[in-house]
């Protein structure tokens, strides 16, 4: 009997000392996975009582995978999500609000770059990013040199440069001035950047109403679509495939593309010519700067309770720490989400990251409630102009009606 007791005692002691194991999910991207592996090792060394199990899924199936784990009541304790998916995951009760004593709202808003305010839902934060992304213009320096032109600062110069570089005529081009691609990053540029540059705003303050069905919205749509219809700088889907415009740029067949900081790695690896990065252009008339910011966040799910919750909070603190953000920049090449780190002189003057970082102070993020649906509304509207000769005014009306319907469906 005595033996039994000691055994039982020994078991309870060892059970309480047994490490908590957390499951972490993100999508499969080689450098992100290997960096996370290294970070997990470091975290486990600092916290011997916590073990982290990383599980990854292909990018195209990732949201599906996470979503289907919600009703099943299974899945990760800490999860990586696109910020645009947050409202739905908060609604479903999948994410826990970040505890105020560990992550105070005031602290979050003073430490992180302004765009993360988009993720404040009902006055609460549910998840935080390690890094953020903005847009910029990638340009082919060799093509610019051949055409004897200098990198543009304004949209007017952007068009002039594109016209000097483009070779061929629709529908057959051999070199594009601008790698136009509505379903790439371009629709963000129209909605979040051009609409503002023409003096409008895309959404009401609370994000429940679209407000781009305005003069500014029509001007923005007109300006963007004329890059193809009037100035003939390029065509969409120049290269077949997933990342048409980027692949074509890497192949040296495109003068300029608009792409995110997340494209730096692929372009660095693939492009066999001199290339550079420029801040998104401004209009000559007012010089208003704008950018579209987006980010992936880490949040704690409803699966984490008790010991697991405490461990998850520790892990999330670690993931959003300055040190991790620095590692992330060095290994993955993504801009730190902290105001302080992204504002360092080294980053601001970096020829590749500088233009992206310079966009941070005025980068806005769309408050998505149904990312796939809202994206489709815009891509289709733009395509009616590019492919069917619809008027930009009607296209804006179409996008507004479609997107408003989605917003109404969510906020009803």
């Amino acid at each position, binding site marked *: 009997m005595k033996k039994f007791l000691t055994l039982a005692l020994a078991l309870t002691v060892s059970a309480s000392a047994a490490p908590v194991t957390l499951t972490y999910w993100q999508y499969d991207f080689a450098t992100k996975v290997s960096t996370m592996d290294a970070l997990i090792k470091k975290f486990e060394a600092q916290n011997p009582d916590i073990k982290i199990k990383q599980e990854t899924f292909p990018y195209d199936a990732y949201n*599906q995978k996470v*979503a*289907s784990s*919600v*009703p099943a009541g299974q899945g990760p304790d800490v999860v990586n999500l696109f910020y645009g998916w947050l409202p*739905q*995951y908060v*609604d*479903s*009760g*999948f994410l826990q609000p970040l505890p105020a004593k560990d992550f105070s709202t005031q602290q979050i808003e003073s430490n992180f770059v302004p765009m993360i305010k988009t993720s404040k839902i009902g006055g609460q934060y549910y998840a935080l990013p390690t890094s953020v992304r903005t847009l910029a213009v990638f340009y082919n320096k060799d093509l610019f040199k051949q055409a004897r032109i200098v990198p543009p600062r304004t949209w007017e110069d952007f068009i002039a440069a594109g016209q000097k570089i483009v070779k*061929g005529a629709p*529908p*057959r*081009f*051999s070199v594009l001035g601008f790698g136009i691609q509505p*379903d*790439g990053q371009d629709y963000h540029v129209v909605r979040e950047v051009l609409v503002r540059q023409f003096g409008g705003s895309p959404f009401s303050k609370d994000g429940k109403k679209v407000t781009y069905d305005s003069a500014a919205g029509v001007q923005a749509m007109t300006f963007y679509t004329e890059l193809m219809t009037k100035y003939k700088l390029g*065509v*969409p*889907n*120049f*290269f*077949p*495939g*997933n*990342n*048409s415009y980027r692949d074509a740029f890497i192949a040296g067949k495109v003068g300029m593309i608009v792409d995110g900081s997340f494209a730096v790695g692929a372009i660095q690896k693939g492009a066999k010519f001199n290339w550079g990065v420029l801040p998104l252009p401004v209009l000559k008339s007012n010089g208003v700067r704008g950018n579209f910011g987006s980010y992936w966040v880490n949040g704690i799910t409803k699966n984490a309770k008790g010991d697991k919750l405490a461990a998850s909070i520790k892990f999330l603190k670690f993931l959003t720490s300055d040190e991790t953000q620095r590692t992330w920049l060095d290994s993955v090449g993504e801009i730190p989400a902290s105001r302080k780190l992204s504002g360092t002189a080294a980053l601001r003057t970096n020829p590749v990251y500088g233009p992206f970082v310079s966009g941070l102070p005025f980068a806005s993020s769309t408050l998505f409630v*149904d990312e*796939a*649906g809202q994206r489709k509304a815009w*891509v*289709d509207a733009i*395509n*009616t102009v590019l*492919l*069917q000769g619809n008027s930009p005014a009607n296209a804006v009306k179409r996008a507004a009606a479609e997107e408003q319907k989605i917003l109404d469906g969510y906020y009803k």
Partner: protein
Amino acid sequence: MDTTSKLAGGRASARPPRRRNTVKYRQTVTAYTFLLVPLLFFLLVRFIPTFMALRLSLFDWNILREQQPFVGLENYTTLVADEKFLQSLKNTALYTVIGVPLQIILGLGLALMLGRVRAFRGFYRALYFAPYVTPIVAAAWVWQWVFSPQFGPVNTVLDWLHLPPQSFLTSPDQALATTAGLVVWQNLGFQVVLFLAGLAAIPRSYYEAAEIDGATGSQAFWRITLPLLNPTIVFSVVTGTIAYLQLFTQVVNLNFTDQGGPLGSTLTVAVYIYQLAFGRFQMGYASAVTVVLFVIILIITLLQLRFLTRRYDT
């Protein structure tokens, strides 16, 4: 009698002893036992989910929401006014109307010609069958390059012939036909093999008799070949139609970043269901579309079987 029944097994002893002793009875039991396994599989994987979809279609069921309210037929009334759904329905019908006749006519034509070829017969058959065993996704990606307005060989040939270059998959007017072309090309080999088998089953004596009676080649085709191929043709029409009504993989891969695009011009009902269910998580609404597609396929298949099947005296 009594001892044998005990030997045969105690469980069945309540039943009348005469039947269970026959060889036929035992064979039947064995057959049902083996059938039970696939039946269970079909019940669990096919039928139960089908009925669950029927139920789901009556709810505003979004997997990313805590509440899944019952809405009755609201999903169906929304459907009637949903332009994208109507467009996908129209496209699906177009795919079927273009694809099914084309692959049957081409398949029959090729089979008839292959029937006359003596040399390298196996080689030709393998050649026409190759697209059918090529992975659909790979073929779709190659197709994108072949029909690329900028770099594709098709436009290069048009250029040589001094014809205007076309936009193909990037044009809302041509994308559907280009997509249907890929599907026909892939299915052709299978059609050829079906028709070759069908042709081989027609007794040669009929043709010989017709020849003696002075029938021309075309008379023999219309009076002998075609009527006797009826079962093969009905099979091809029915299975082909169902396949086109469920068209998915080619559409998704031919325009991966704007699936069903440009402007929904290649969108099929199956792709639309996928987008609603797994892109936007609207399971209830997607189920309603599924139920409608199911009903359409059922009606069309029944009509085809009723009107296409002919009995010819042989």
